[in-house]
């Protein structure tokens, strides 16, 4: 019988690539003047789960905000397009990183241990977002575990300008000269915003060590059996009443719904109103020659379904939302069988009055 071999060319490199990634505290390369500065540290704390058990979570806390020690998801970051952003990161609890998911800086500021370094005690990340949109930030050390442990937050890049329509004062992105009118108003103006991050939790994983699985031991990272399903850290039974997952707005105005999948499941969302997908993964679907005229907003009639892949983000624009309660239904499906998980439904709500 033929054997297909996988000889390891360099065991030492294998070791540093996985088991012992390079740790360092370099000066920020090519550092320049900043417009935004914030700080992040690492926190761990216990969360009361819906069945009364307690599980450990980890996240990024903001040391400049008191009471921010149990942030899940980690605190929202909002910056404006074109601003030079600095984040001073002091992990304090072992080496970690911050990857700015969807933002595309240089490798040292990309926060990936095996292509650059893990932050040993302090590093200042630097980047300058060129495009308004919906992003995430998360730890990229032993990502399989640290992302599941809750080390992620939403990052939004807002456009520079405001909409002159005071009823719908915010834009998803700057409308600029050359935008070809499409079904939506260029810039996707909105007065109400709902930011929903869906997640699932396997309690077994929350008992593992920080470095579990990095040095070749079988620690069960091939078995992910989620039993809790949440939106913005709120358990599925409470997502239709909790202020973190219910958005109140004035009927007849425009809504921007930002959805992200931080679970390890296939997330199928049902949309309750006529709407348009206007942005995917931080890129508006626009038609403008110099900026790119390759995509267009996609219409979704009320009742349409949308699959949000793991770590994808979608921005959905609902114009003139009718009066009433509108449910955003998320169903979590197994990544191999595509069967819905037991109890795997979480529903957020838009209340238009």
């Amino acid at each position: 019988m033929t054997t297909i071999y996988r000889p390891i060319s360099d065991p030492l490199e294998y070791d540093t690539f996985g088991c012992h990634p390079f740790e360092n505290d370099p000066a920020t390369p090519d550092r320049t003047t900043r417009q935004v500065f914030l700080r992040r540290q690492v926190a761990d704390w216990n969360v009361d789960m819906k069945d009364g058990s307690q599980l450990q979570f980890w996240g990024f806390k903001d040391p400049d905000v008191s009471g921010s020690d149990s942030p899940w998801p980690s605190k929202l970051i909002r910056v404006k397009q074109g601003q030079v952003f600095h984040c001073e990161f002091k992990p304090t609890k072992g080496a970690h990183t911050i990857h700015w998911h969807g933002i595309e800086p240089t490798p040292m500021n990309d926060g990936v241990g095996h292509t650059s370094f893990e932050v040993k005690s302090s590093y200042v990340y630097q980047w300058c977002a060129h495009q308004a949109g919906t992003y995430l930030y998360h730890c990229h050390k032993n990502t399989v575990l640290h992302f599941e442990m809750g080390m992620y937050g939403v990052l939004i890049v807002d456009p520079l300008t405001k909409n002159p329509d005071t009823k719908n004062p915010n834009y998803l992105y700057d409308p600029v000269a050359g935008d070809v009118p499409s079904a939506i108003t260029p810039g996707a103006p909105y007065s109400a915003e709902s930011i929903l991050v869906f997640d699932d939790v396997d309690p077994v994983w929350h008992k593992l060590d920080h470095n579990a699985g990095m040095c070749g031991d079988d620690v069960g990272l091939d078995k992910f059996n989620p039993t809790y399903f949440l939106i913005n850290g709120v358990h599925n039974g409470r997502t239709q009443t909790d202020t973190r997952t219910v958005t109140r707005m004035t009927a007849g105005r425009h809504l921007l719904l930002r959805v992200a999948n931080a679970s390890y499941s296939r997330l199928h969302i049902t949309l309750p109103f006529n709407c348009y997908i206007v942005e995917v993964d931080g890129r508006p679907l626009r038609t403008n020659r110099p900026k790119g005229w390759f995509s267009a907003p996609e219409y979704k009639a009320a009742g349409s379904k949308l699959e949000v892949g793991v770590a994808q983000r979608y921005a959905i624009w609902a114009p003139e939302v009718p009066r009433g309660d509108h449910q955003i239904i998320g169903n979590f499906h197994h990544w191999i069988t595509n069967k819905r998980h037991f109890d795997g439904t979480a529903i957020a709500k838009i209340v238009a009055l």
Partner: protein
Amino acid sequence: MRRREFLKYGSAMAAFATVSTSLPAILSAQTSEDAPTGEKADFDLEIVDVDVELIDGSVVPMYAFAPTGKTASIPGPILRVTQGDTVRIDIRNSSTRPHGFQIVGQSNAVVSGLAPADGDGEDKTRIEFVATKPGTYFYVDGDNSPINRVLGLYGALIVEPKNGYADGAAKKKPMPYAPGAATPAMKSLFTALGEATIDGKPARFPGKPWQKEREYVWIFNQIDPVMCRRIGGGELVTPAEFESQFHPRYFTINGLCGLDSAHDKATCPTGRAGEPALIRCMNAGLATHSPHIHGNHVFVLTESNKNGLPVYQTSLNEHDVWTMPPMMIKDVLLPFTTPPDVPPAPWRMVQEKYPLRYPMHCHNEISQTSAGGSYPMGLVTDWHIDGPVATS
């Protein structure tokens, strides 16, 4: 396997490597010239039983395609043809089990129930079809589905256009699709590549147009070693049982894991800024993957329908994560732009390390491990930007 033992094993294998051919070497040799062809679109393939060594040194029985008389590989060799070609593929089953062969999405391209060959060299079966729509297709053993496929019998058939240019008669903007069938958005994108300015404004893709050689194939799969051993040991496992009990512990891209794929030239896209690359992305397994690329977004150009045929996209959404359900095929364009969120500064950035190395990994992070641990030794590779914008 514990790390300590692994390292010991790894050192022993390093010596062995000098006398054996590694899969990366085979894959990187898979250019159109090296494909198993006698005439232009004639291929001769054999199905064989193999033992596959995994990244932690364990070995599982699988099946593989081989150009007849040559080395077997998982995935099988890339079959590259031109639109309009009459494609002939001769199949011999040299495995101990019955097998089949199928080009998904092509009619008259299915055989099944091929008995094991008796060794007289004459027992080949031929399929013949005309390649029509340019794009990326799966060839698989469709028998016993999905078992034979997931156990290694999968590969890519690429149909290139007879005359693929996005800019018509000027022929300065090559495109991997026929202009008559490509959507306006596809033609717009390939026309924009290599333009420093558009309408007098700085454009998004200075550098070079896409070039035919700038192409990569990424085929994802998952390996359940228990299933491999049960089936390899002769146990009769039904497809329903296989699907319900499938529990993958290894996650591969072009048959490789982690560090191996980052080192494989045929897998790891490289080039200077302004040298766009086409990536033909395929999922042969049963898990739904969420490939995530750092450093650049990709444009999704095609998406296969349930029959395996490429659907050319009318709206080319840019993604940093794209979804890959089982048997999905997506051609995506990696523009190789200077990473757009670098603060304004002269290139090349003085203190940053070169080349600019970014990962591509599945964000369903379970797939980043092997054997229940060993992060990041799963479905992950790198890509590199080797220098500042290349001009034509």
